[in-house]
């Protein structure tokens, strides 16, 4: 069978149409859902989910094709415009090229990186849709929620498939908008109490914070466009390599400054979108959105977009930019991991974990390990999506409790969720034979290769030391979460938490008065009728309130007789299916990449893996550019070999160390864990407070969100200093400059002009006019004197003549 005729061979005529279909289906679904969603049976969730199923299937099929091509050693880079004539022309006219005005046309660009990312987006989005059917069931604005996550998926698919930076940016912005709408999902729902207030502020914060990064990206884009007059990635790569070569021919060892500046601006976009320090502040607050949205944002779409951008733009970065990227990534990885160890909200732990893992990916790109970074992005997407959805399942099962101190012992009640979450946790912690190990190990390996090979020393050293520390912390806080949530006994109401019984003082929805039973997302406020004290003791209080809610949970098979309803219950089937799919991908993502189908499954050998075959510099950026990029970071064989022997033990040690510490502190019973943790936090009290306060970055930037439940009926559009503090400070600064510098300059110019005018007028009046009148005056004066002599009297004239003659005679005679 020839490769061309094989079912997995890429067929440009047909496959671009399939890809386009996969890309456009969520958009079609969105439009249908927005207009007709409310009227459709089940509010249209089945429609969008099945649409997403088609999309996911196509992406998986296409991904298989990319693997098949890689396996046969073929180059897999497809462009719909060049190969099938499928273009979308924008700012285009056929005769403008001659005048030097560049055209902007978009087409589908499908390469191994895009294939992997597209598959991740398709599968994770499908799982999120499936999960949401159960999780969001019966909540207000259910159909809008589905429409929004569908459009979110559409934006990410478009971003991945885009063949140029401009369209990437367009979809990037669409995603910014959708994240705003989805994080703020509860801001339209006053009955969701705590989340209502939090989400109202958090969505603004997320939008405005990422806007800072987006602006940077736009500036970077324009810088590159200005020089290269193209947005197409393939062109940009080629021109960047040529530009560097040209510059180095003139100044050996130096790189064009403008490329460094442009590259830093593009990285600014990643800082905003992928939540790198110091713009990470929006991400923990993005937890105000519904949990499926968190899974989506944190795994497949939003934050992955920033890392994906780095992968797309890697050839355009100079070593200086890469050093900054590596340092920022490492800093973020450690920084977020430390905060993750102090969080008690199960979603907050995962949020900080996401930031930390994104730091790993960004650092990997900065170290020259694009392949490792992208690999980690893919594996992380699966297990993080699984973790978030599992957390959602736990929250759902525990009656909207999010504080881990109020959980415990959930394993018994939710075995499937526990299995999925544990598998993903092991994967993220970096235990061998689970996918996270391979990708994380590859990143640490990359850092050590740089050190041992003597490249990029400063940032590499920081990364080589910092990343293992962050990995250790990751293992620690992830297992801390597992132990706190699933081990020991169920302990509701241990501490006061705002999540489970929020808004009791303002909402009296009797129809939702399902204490401990409301499967309705934000309808947890439901305990309205119970009074404050009752919440802390749900188990005792529920009996009196159970009956009026019973009708509500008929469709949740998870819980039986209502006298059980204070204990956690396993989630409904669609959620579990989604969890299992993601857990499978999360665990085996790495093997899938690493397995060599010809030889045995030697996935412990890193040196020669299938993943590196299918996603290498050469396959990502073309043979010619890829060779140059690979040569730039290549180290000698000895260093590479040594790095393998450093990285593997280091990865294993830090992972097991982290888990061991977590077990020692949290794994041996709740009371004991509180005692030990209390002692430790007491002994490092000052440090603990700083870390627990998230290093006060929010407070420094003035962006901390304070949710005050006592304040009633907050106006929704009040100028909210706490949320947009940084923007407001900045705007105030600009306004001050405007008033005191720019206006002052204008005024000064005006006043100077006026003064010069006045001086000129005075000169005119005194000097010029004075000269004119002066001449007249002098003449007049002389005239009036001379007039005295002209009396008309003949005798007088004669007198003058005589005396004049005498005087003349006297003068002649005497002198």
């Amino acid at each position, binding site marked *: 069978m020839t490769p061309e005729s094989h079912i997995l061979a890429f067929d440009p005529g047909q496959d671009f149409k399939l890809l386009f279909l996969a890309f456009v289906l969520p958009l079609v679904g969105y439009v249908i859902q927005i207009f007709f969603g409310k009227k459709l049976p089940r509010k249209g969730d089945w429609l969008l989910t099945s649409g997403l199923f088609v999309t996911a299937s196509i992406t998986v099929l296409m991904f298989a094709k990319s693997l098949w091509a890689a396996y046969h050693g073929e180059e897999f880079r497809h462009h719909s415009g060049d190969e099938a004539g499928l273009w979308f022309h924008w700012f285009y006219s056929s005769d403008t090229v001659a005048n030097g005005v560049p055209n902007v046309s978009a087409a589908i660009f499908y390469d191994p990186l895009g294939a992997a990312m597209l598959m991740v987006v398709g599968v994770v989005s499908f799982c999120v849709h499936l999960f949401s059917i159960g999780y969001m069931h019966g909540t207000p604005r259910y159909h809008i929620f589905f429409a929004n996550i569908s459009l979110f998926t559409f934006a990410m698919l478009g971003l991945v498939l885009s063949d140029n930076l401009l369209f990437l940016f367009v979809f990037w912005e669409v995603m910014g908008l959708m994240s705003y709408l989805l994080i703020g999902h509860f801001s339209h729902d006053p009955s969701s109490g705590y989340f209502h207030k939090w989400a109202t502020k958090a969505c603004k914060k997320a939008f405005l914070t990422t806007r800072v990064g987006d602006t940077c990206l736009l500036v970077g884009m324009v810088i590159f466009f200005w020089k290269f007059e193209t947005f197409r990635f393939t062109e940009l790569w080629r021109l960047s390599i040529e530009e560097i070569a040209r510059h180095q021919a003139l100044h050996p060892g130096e790189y064009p400054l403008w490329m460094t500046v442009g590259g830093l601006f593009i990285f600014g976009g990643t800082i905003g979108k992928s939540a790198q320090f110091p713009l990470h502040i929006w991400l923990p607050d993005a937890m105000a959105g519904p949990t499926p949205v968190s899974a989506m944002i944190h795994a497949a779409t939003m934050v992955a977009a920033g890392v994906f951008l780095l992968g797309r733009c890697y050839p355009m970065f100079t070593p200086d930019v890469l050093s900054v990227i590596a340092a920022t990534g490492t800093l973020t990885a450690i920084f977020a991991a430390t905060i993750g160890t102090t969080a008690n909200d199960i979603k907050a732990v995962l949020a900080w974990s996401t930031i930390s893992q994104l730091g790993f990916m960004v650092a990997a790109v900065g170290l020259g390990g694009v392949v490792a970074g992208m690999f980690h992005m893919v594996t992380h997407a699966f297990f993080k999506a699984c973790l978030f959805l599992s957390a959602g399942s736990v929250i759902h099962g525990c009656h909207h409790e999010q504080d881990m101190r109020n959980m415990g012992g959930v394993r018994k009640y939710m075995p499937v969720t526990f299995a999925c979450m544990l598998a993903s946790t092991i994967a993220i912690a970096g235990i061998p034979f689970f996918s996270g190990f391979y990708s994380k190990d590859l990143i640490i390996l990359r850092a050590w290769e740089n050190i041992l090979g003597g490249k990029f020393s400063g940032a590499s050293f920081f990364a080589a030391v910092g990343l293992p520390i962050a990995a250790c912390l990751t293992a620690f806080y992830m297992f801390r979460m597992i132990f706190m949530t699933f081990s020991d006994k169920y302990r509701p109401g241990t501490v006061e938490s705002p999540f489970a019984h929020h808004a009791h003082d303002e909402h009296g929805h009797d129809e939702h008065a399902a204490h401990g039973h409301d499967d309705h997302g934000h309808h947890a406020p439901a305990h309205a009728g119970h009074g404050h004290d009752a919440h802390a003791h749900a188990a005792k209080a529920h009996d009196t309130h159970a009956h009026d809610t019973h009708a509500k949970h008929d469709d949740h098979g998870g819980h039986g007789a209502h006298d059980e309803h204070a204990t956690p219950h396993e989630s409904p089937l669609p959620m579990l299916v989604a969890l299992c799919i993601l857990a499978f991908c999360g665990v085996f993502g790495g093997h899938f990449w690493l397995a060599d189908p010809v030889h045995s499954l030697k996935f412990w050998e890193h040196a020669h893996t299938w993943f590196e075959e299918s996603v290498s510099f050469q396959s990502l950026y073309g043979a010619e550019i890829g060779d140059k990029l690979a040569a730039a970071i290549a180290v000698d064989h000895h260093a590479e070999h040594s790095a393998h022997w450093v990285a593997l033990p280091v990865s294993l040690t830090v992972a097991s160390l982290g888990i061991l510490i977590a077990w020692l502190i949290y794994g041996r019973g709740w009371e004991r864990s509180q005692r030990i943790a209390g002692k430790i936090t007491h002994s490092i009290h000052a440090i603990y407070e700083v870390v627990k306060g998230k290093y006060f970055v929010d407070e420094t930037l003035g962006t901390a969100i304070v949710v005050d439940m006592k304040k009633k009926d907050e106006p929704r559009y009040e100028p909210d200093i706490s949320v947009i503090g940084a923007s407001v400070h900045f705007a105030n600064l600009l306004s001050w400059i405007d008033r005191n510098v720019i206006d002052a300059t204008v005024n000064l110019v005006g006043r100077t002009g006026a003064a010069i005018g006045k001086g000129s007028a005075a000169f005119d009046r005194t000097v010029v006019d004075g000269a004119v009148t002066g001449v007249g005056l002098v003449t007049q004066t002389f005239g009036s004197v001379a007039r005295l002599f*002209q*009396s*008309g*009297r*003949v*005798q007088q*004239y*004669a*007198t003058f003549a*005589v005396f004049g003659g005498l005087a003349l005679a006297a003068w002649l005679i005497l002198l």
Partner: protein
Amino acid sequence: MGLGAYIAVSAALFALGVVAILVRRNILYVLMGIEMILNAANINFVAFNRFNGGGLDGRMFAIFVIILAAAEAAVALAIVLNVFHLFNSVKPAEADLLRE
């Protein structure tokens, strides 16, 4: 009697004539002053003629001057009449049309 005496008489006569022209308020006296100056010139002519060889030329000039004076007097009196006619006065200070 020497030449100096003649010149002294002539100079006195000339000075009187000039003074008469300059200071007299009546235009007729001014005319008389002019006649006196002419006659002072005549005395000079005649005196220098006598003391310089006694020819006819000095005396001839004197006779011409007398004739000239007669003609001048006729013209001057005509002017005086016109002035009187015009200004209704014989005071030269009032005939100041030259001022305009």
